[in-house]
C-alpha cells in the first residue's frame, strides 16, 4: 500500500504520533478518519482473555473508516495504537460521506452491510481467540 496522489486532496492536516500513543480508543464516540502516512499501527480489541492485536496496518491504511458509512453516532470498534513513531493524515470525512451519499441506495446499502460484516467478523476473531483452550 502506498499513498496515492488522489488521497492528498482529502488530507486536512498531518500529525506526528509517538510510539504507543492511542490514536483511536475502542468504545469512544465521534471518531475521525485517518490515513497512515508512514510507520505502523496496531489494531487491538478487548476480549474475555485480555487485549488482542487483531491486525497491523502500514502506510496507506485507512483507519476509522466506519464513520464514513454509519455516522458520528458509532463508537470506535477497536483501539488503534502507534507501533513506533507514526505520521497520520486526518481525512476530510465529511467530503467522503457526502460522496458516499450520492451513490445509488442499493450500493450504499451493500457497502454498509459489508462494513458491518467486517465489524462482526473482527468481533468473532476476538471472541474465538478469547475462548481458545491453549
Amino acid at each position, binding site marked *: *500500500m502506498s499513498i*496515492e496522489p*488522489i*488521497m492528498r*486532496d*482529502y488530507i486536512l492536516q498531518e500529525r506526528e504520533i509517538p510510539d504507543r500513543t492511542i490514536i483511536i480508543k475502542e468504545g469512544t464516540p465521534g471518531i475521525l478518519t485517518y490515513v497512515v502516512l508512514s510507520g505502523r499501527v496496531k489494531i487491538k480489541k478487548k476480549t474475555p482473555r485480555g487485549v488482542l492485536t*487483531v*491486525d497491523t496496518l502500514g502506510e496507506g*491504511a*485507512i483507519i476509522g*473508516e466506519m464513520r*464514513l458509512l454509519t455516522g458520528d453516532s458509532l463508537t470506535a470498534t477497536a483501539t488503534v495504537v502507534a507501533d513506533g513513531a507514526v505520521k497520520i493524515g486526518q481525512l476530510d470525512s465529511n467530503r*467522503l460521506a457526502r*460522496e*458516499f451519499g450520492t*451513490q*445509488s441506495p*442499493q*450500493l450504499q*446499502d*451493500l*457497502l454498509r*452491510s*459489508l*462494513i458491518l*460484516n*467486517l465489524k462482526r*467478523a*473482527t468481533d*468473532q*476473531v476476538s471472541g*474465538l*481467540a478469547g475462548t*481458545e483452550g491453549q
Partner: protein
Amino acid sequence: MAAPRKIPPVRLRYSTGDLIVKQGAYGAAVFKLIKGQVEVFSESEGLELLVATLSPGVLFNESIFVYGTSVPQPYTIRAASETEVEAWHVDWLRAEYEAMPPFLNLVLDQSIQRLKRMEALVARAEDQHRSQPQPVVALTSRPEQAEVAKALATDESGQAQRQYYRRDVDLECLYQPYGPGVVKKKLFGRVRDLSRTGAGIEVPGKNLEHYPHSVGQTFRVNLTLPNGQEITFLAKVMRSATGVVSGTQAIGLAITDIDYESQKQLGFFLMP
C-alpha cells in the same frame, strides 16, 4: 472491462418454502429482503441446517459481490413466508462500485480486503474448534459454524481445502448393511455429496422399513464415479434425518474402511 451491463434491480415474489438461493450453485445477484422472512440453511452431509432467519431490510448473498461469481453460493435460502425481495445483479453493482470517486473506492476496497481476511481468520480459528466433536444442536444455533463452510469454500489455504473439500454430486449408489449376522439386503440411494472422509446420501424412506439406518450402523457402499470408475468403502452412519425432498431420509456417512484403489480414485475425483 467491456461496457458494463446495466441490469437494474428487480423485485421478485416468493411463496413459503420457495427456493431463492441454492447453496453450491453459481449465482449472479445480491438480494435485499423487502417483505416477509427468509430462512438461511447450511447444507452439510445431506442435511439442511437452519443457521439464521432474516427479517426485512437485511441483505443476503453478498458474498457474490465480495468473492465473485465463480465462487459457489455459500447458503441455501428459502422463503419462510410470502416474501418480496429485490435482486441486484452483480454486474450492475460492480459498474456502480467502479464508477465511485477514486479515493472513496480505495477506502472501500481496503474495507472489503479486511473483511475477506477476517472471514478467513474466523474459518481457521473455527477449524481448530471443529476438530473436536460438535453436537448438531450447537451447529444449528451458531451462525459462526456456517461461516466456516462459507469461508472454506474460498480459503486460499490449500491445506484447509484438502481436509474438508466436499463435492456436490448426484450419483446412484448401492449400499448394504455390514457386520456379523446382518441381513445383507441390497438398497439403493443417491449420493448428494462426497469428501475424502464421508458422504451424504439421500435414501427413499421405504429403505428404513427394510433396515434401520441408525447412528453407528455400518454399510458397505458401492458407487460409480462420473468417469466410470467404481469405488467401494465401508461407512458408519453419523446422522440421520428427514430429507429435504419429501419421502426421503438424509444419511450422513463417515468412511471407516476403504481400499487403496478406491481411495485413489476418490482422491482424483475430489481434486478441485
